[in-house]
């Protein structure tokens, strides 16, 4: 029983990372119908940039984190402008963009492979900061992550519900054809979506690089976790869906990791396939 | 329903989509060798009748008989097995198949469609015969020149003709044609008329027509029923129904006001 609580707390920590990645992915998928595989790339780019700026260039940790976020946002925006835009303009559809996006992630991944095959990590002593409640060991850093997730979601909620851009974005999820009439606004909204979603992925990337570290494979893993979270939560309500999906997935990963660690990706993806078959609109849809 | 060959009978069909009422008590006889047309304003549920017959939707009430045999639990892909075939208002041609292939693909019982059958010499001979049949079908609408062209590149009217021939090629005894003339270029309409006549008169197929174009209906239909306001308001021999002042006022009035 106490073991379960421990697993639960681990799952909660994981859910925090997943939530940051998933909500950005969901935002792009629900509004633009783009299956942004390279969202994982953006996540990874932030982590490597953070590592490079802080560890190699010696920038102050906060400054390095801020720069890494900006780089992630920019990379996300440029992927849309340089790759997806032309594919769509030349008559490509959802599947073509998906393949092109795979291409982007292959290129970035190869770059990081050249940089380092192993884990790059900024990890520090604070990570060992733990406290014990009963028999459960808790990491202070996990609470830090959850606090950041709460802040990010709060800001996102205000952005979506209190600004005109947010209104336009929610319009896109409801009826994209209606919103498309507004022409110029759509391009602006599109940029905003990519910038915000990529910053959130970047935030997760910086935190991951700080915590467990990045490997060239982290991007794809993280992306698919985001995807499964979105399929779990559905895209009707982006924020709620992503957080429910991420929480469920965090728990699944933690429990699978505890009881049958060899079968983690089997569990995740088997569940994804089963969901697609029986509830493609998500658990909440 | 005593004869073994009395076409399609739609008996007391009732339908609603969720809470939205579509129609009630629709009864239509579609005998072989005749063209039966259903006219009515947009949204009256004419296409819905075809969709129900083909098993796309389940009706609230009513029965469907083909040659006296009741249809039950039919799914779209086994309509042809029961002797029915439909066409679509929006053609749904196979754009990357040639006009000839569009017709060929519809032919039933091809041993060349089975993995083992396709390597047998019998399949070759059958395919040659089918090609000849398909070519003849194209000739009936003077489209033999388009045989080798991808159907997606043909003008809309020609696509529609090909899609009608496709339904014909299935060999179905009952044809359900959804607005075969809609969107067809004016100079091709006589070919549509001739084809539909030939199907019923020369080949004895039971032909059901859902159509907006009242001139076409006048030219091809033997029987006409008018679906309006959720029920059949008039039904009978074409010249009677189309000569009925109230029908014409109701129908044409709506069409021209729309």
């Amino acid at each position, binding site marked *: 029983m106490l073991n379960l609580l421990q697993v639960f707390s681990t799952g909660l920590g994981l859910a925090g990372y997943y939530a940051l990645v998933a909500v950005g992915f969901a935002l792009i998928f629900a509004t633009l119908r783009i299956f942004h595989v390279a969202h994982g790339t953006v996540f990874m780019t932030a982590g490597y940039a953070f590592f490079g700026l802080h560890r190699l260039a010696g920038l102050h940790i906060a400054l390095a984190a801020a720069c890494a976020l900006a780089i992630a946002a920019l990379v996300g925006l440029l992927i849309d402008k340089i790759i997806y835009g032309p594919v769509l303009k030349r008559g490509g559809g959802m599947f073509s963009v998906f393949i092109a996006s795979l291409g982007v992630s292959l290129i970035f991944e190869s770059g990081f492979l050249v940089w380092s095959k192993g884990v790059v990590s900024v990890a520090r002593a604070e990570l060992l900061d733990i406290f014990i409640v009963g028999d459960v060991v808790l990491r202070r850093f996990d609470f830090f992550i959850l606090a950041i997730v709460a802040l990010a979601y709060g800001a996102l909620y205000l952005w979506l519900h209190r600004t005109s851009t947010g209104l336009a974005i929610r319009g896109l999820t409801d009826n994209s054809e209606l919103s498309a009439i507004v022409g110029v606004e759509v391009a602006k909204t599109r940029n905003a979506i990519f910038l915000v979603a990529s910053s959130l992925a970047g935030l997760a990337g910086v935190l991951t690089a700080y915590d467990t570290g990045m490997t060239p494979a982290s991007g794809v893993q993280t992306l698919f976790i985001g995807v499964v979270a979105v399929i779990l939560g559905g895209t009707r309500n982006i924020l709620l869906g992503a957080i429910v999906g991420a929480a469920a997935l965090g728990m699944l990963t933690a429990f699978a990791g505890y009881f049958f660690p060899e079968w983690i990706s089997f569990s995740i993806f088997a569940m994804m396939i089963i969901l697609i078959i029986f509830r493609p609109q998500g658990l909440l849809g | 329903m005593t004869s073994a060959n009395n076409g399609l009978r739609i008996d007391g069909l009732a339908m609603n989509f969720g809470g939205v009422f579509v129609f009630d008590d629709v009864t239509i006889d579609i005998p072989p060798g005749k063209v039966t047309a259903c006219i009515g304003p947009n949204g009256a549920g004419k296409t819905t009748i075809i969709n129900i017959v083909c098993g796309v939707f389940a009706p609230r009430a009513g029965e469907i008989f083909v040659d006296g045999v009741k249809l039950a639990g039919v799914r779209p892909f086994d309509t042809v097995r029961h002797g029915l*075939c439909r066409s679509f208002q929006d053609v749904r041609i196979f754009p990357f198949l040639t006009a000839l292939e569009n017709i060929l693909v519809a032919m039933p019982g091809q041993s060349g469609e089975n*993995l083992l059958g396709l390597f047998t010499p019998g399949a070759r001979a059958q395919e040659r015969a089918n090609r000849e049949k398909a070519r003849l079908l194209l000739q009936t609408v003077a489209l033999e020149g388009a045989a080798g062209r991808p159907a997606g590149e043909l003008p809309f009217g020609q696509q529609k003709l090909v899609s009608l021939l496709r339904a014909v090629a299935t060999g179905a005894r009952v044809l359900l044609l959804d607005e075969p003339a809609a969107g067809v270029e004016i100079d091709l309409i006589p070919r549509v008329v001739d084809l539909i006549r030939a199907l019923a008169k020369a080949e004895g197929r039971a032909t059901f027509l859902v159509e907006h174009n009242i001139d076409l209906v006048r030219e091809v239909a033997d029987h006409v029923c008018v679906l309006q306001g959720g029920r059949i308001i008039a039904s009978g021999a074409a010249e009677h129904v189309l000569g009925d002042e109230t029908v014409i006022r109701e129908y044409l009035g709506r069409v021209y006001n729309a």
Partner: protein
Amino acid sequence: MEHLYYLGTLISVWIIVALAANLVIGYTGMMAMGQAAYLGVGAYVAAGLNVLLGVNFHLALLAALLVSGAVAAATLWPLLRIGGFYFALATLGLNFVFFDIFHNLGPRVEGSEGLHGLKLPDLFAGSGARFATTAALAALCFLACRTIVGSPLGRALRAVRDRPDALAALGKDPRRYQMLIWSVAGALTGLAGGLYAATLFYIDPTLFTLDASILVLVYIGVGGLASTWGSVLGVVLLIVFNESLRYLGLPSQYVGPLQQALYGLLLIGLMIFRRRGLVGEYDFRE
């Protein structure tokens, strides 16, 4: 010479995989993103039977073909009801599901991550003989695929791809054709898996990941969708090109990433400039 034989064998193996993938993706319009799973099943069945149970390799190959076909049919069955993009996503998930299966349940030789020590019969024993046999099998598959796509069956497959609802209205159940061709493609991919094991002498789960499935996509994307010659062309060009990268004199740790980056560029370039590939008859429309 040894190395040339090896390359020729490898090309032959991937030609079979690409032909099979093109049957489902290019001709039937089913977005198969998990072909590596069936490749792995074939490789594990052939190598497992041969190494652990001492089954004659010819028989093991036949078993690989049959088992992969059956596994393909069994995995497609529940997926038939989903369409479009979610189908692609589900097949993509198969890569990860099967990786864990290979990793956790796949037989392995003591002290290694995978299987080695195949006992190959004469037709596969020397590198020359192995190349000749594999190439002959690839040629056979090529002819079989050409026969299929040129037949009434091939026509029906293209009709499934273009308008499944219209085909259903003509009295032919699209799912029947999808099931049939998916199983055929799975069987051929499984055969290729068995041959792949004989080519490499060693298999482990890392050979059958998403990367391999993407590779298949790159091959037929470059060569051309709905084209048998396209499948051959894509594989030959890319493997030869890839091989030539080795002779650039780069440090060896850069060759792999460079290949990967070029594949990425190719995918992007194809999607922007030529979605039908070099000689394709169809393109990624969705």
